[in-house]
């Protein structure tokens, strides 16, 4: 029962000092580990800013592979609020029943496919296609476009050899530039066209701002969704009783999604740049240095969560920060939650059991900490409920 387990590597440091330290490309990061500090600092956008050099608040830093500012992600209030208000209704579309029906069809098709196949490599043959197909709904573009994204492989910025791969990132940026040009020539009802027609402060969005929203949408929702889906499959493989419970009690699916998101914390951390000398956990932090909000650690804080290292499917009170917190909370959360709800409902309905054949863990190297975030590869066999 430990193949699907995600350890909490932060526990000792969180209890003993409350922070960790990571040297990331000579731009060190003080990682905040306690739930309270993480939420407070996420809320304090004046001391801990997002609107720094593009790419700098991401850990590992993307300053060397990206010039485009991700929007609204790398802006601070009040600028941030204008762009956020502009894009928010679009990103709430997953609440519409038509969207949900289409997503359901995609996910049921994916599950039927793996049920009729022998051994499946989940990351590349299940999670990546689900994520890519669902993204066509979020962008409101033809289903077939997903084939291009699937062909890029699992990581947009990372390759197997390096944590950051500029050549791979360029594929995405060039692709988005092309799509924006296409939407200018042929406006439609897709996200590119909607953004190009939108206004902020009485002026049209620039191409660069449109690109910023699109890069955020592609990059922010790729590894994260893939890890959430893959980790769910590994968990249900080792916990068939949970699948059975969800089959009998579909009313707890919402709670289960939140709990799995807490436990998996698909995005380990997000950085901020410090604007003034300050201190956190009695540790001095200098202006123009970086902190990170370690969501994965905050989500295991025993002062907030009872039995933090267990998945309690129907956890009632669950103030997790897997989708971030405060101003910058995840723009794609509605979409991600809908994928997870649909996936769990479909697994409960169709799948009897899942066998793990072999796997290779995806472990992030955070200097002081090594954190398993998911799998590089995991082969499983899905067994149908109705044989």
């Amino acid at each position, binding site marked *: 029962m430990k193949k699907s387990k995600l350890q909490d590597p932060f526990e000792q440091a969180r209890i003993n000092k409350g922070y960790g330290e990571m040297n990331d490309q000579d731009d060190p990061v003080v990682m905040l580990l306690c739930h*309270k500090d993480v*939420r*407070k600092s996420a*809320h304090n956008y004046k001391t801990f800013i997002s609107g720094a050099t593009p790419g700098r608040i991401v850990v590992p830093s993307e300053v060397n592979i990206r010039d485009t500012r991700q929007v609204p992600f790398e802006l601070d209030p009040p600028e941030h609020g204008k762009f956020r208000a502009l894009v928010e209704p679009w990103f*709430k579309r997953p609440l519409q029943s038509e969207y949900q029906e289409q997503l359901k069809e995609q996910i049921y098709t994916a599950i039927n496919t793996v049920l009729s196949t022998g051994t499946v490599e989940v990351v590349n043959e299940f999670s990546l296609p689900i994520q890519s197909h669902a993204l066509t709904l979020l962008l409101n573009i033809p289903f077939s476009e997903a084939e291009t994204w699937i062909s890029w492989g699992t990581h947009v910025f990372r390759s197997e050899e390096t944590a950051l791969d500029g050549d791979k990132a360029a594929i995405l940026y060039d692709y988005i530039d092309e799509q924006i040009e296409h939407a200018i020539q042929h406006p439609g009802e897709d996200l590119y066209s909607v953004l190009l027609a939108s206004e902020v402060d009485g002026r049209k969005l620039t191409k660069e701002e449109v690109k910023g929203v699109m890069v955020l949408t592609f990059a922010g929702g790729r590894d994260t969704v893939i890890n959430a889906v893959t980790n769910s499959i590994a968990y249900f493989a080792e916990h068939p009783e949970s699948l059975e419970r969800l089959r009998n009690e579909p009313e707890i699916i*919402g*709670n289960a*999604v*939140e709990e799995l998101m807490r436990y998996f914390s698909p995005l380990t951390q997000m950085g901020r740049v410090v604007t003034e000398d300050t201190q956190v956990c009695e540790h001095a932090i200098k202006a123009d240095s970086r902190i990170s909000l370690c969501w994965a650690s905050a989500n295991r804080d025993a002062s*907030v969560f009872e039995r933090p290292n267990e998945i309690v499917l129907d*956890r*009632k*009170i*669950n*103030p*997790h*920060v897997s*989708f971030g*917190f*405060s101003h910058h*909370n995840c723009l794609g*959360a*509605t979409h991600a*939650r809908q994928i997870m709800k649909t996936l769990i409902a479909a697994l409960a309905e169709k799948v009897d059991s899942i066998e793990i054949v072999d796997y290779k863990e995806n472990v992030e190297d955070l200097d002081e900490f090594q954190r398993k975030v998911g799998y590089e590869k995991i082969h499983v066999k899905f067994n149908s409920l109705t044989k």
Partner: protein
Amino acid sequence: MAKITFITSDNETHIVEGDSGSVMELAVNNGIQGIDGDCGGVCSCATCHVHVSPEDISKTGEASEIEKDMLELDDNADAYSRLGCQLAISDALDGIVLRVAK
């Protein structure tokens, strides 16, 4: 059965009735503007923030510690703030007036 009044940020009044679930679910099911309930009611998202009318505080009671910690970081919060997901609907809530924060 509890009759609950929501006043939205554009000053529209909506009176709705419920007998089970939470105030957040009641609001979402009735399309009350400003109550999203993104996390489904586990006290994680604060998108169901309401201000209870001062005279109704005795009916709703006070926020729990985890709820208070959440509200503490909401710029619009005051002494009458509650999260709708943490208010279970019962006859005790009949007649209360809630002002939607967002």
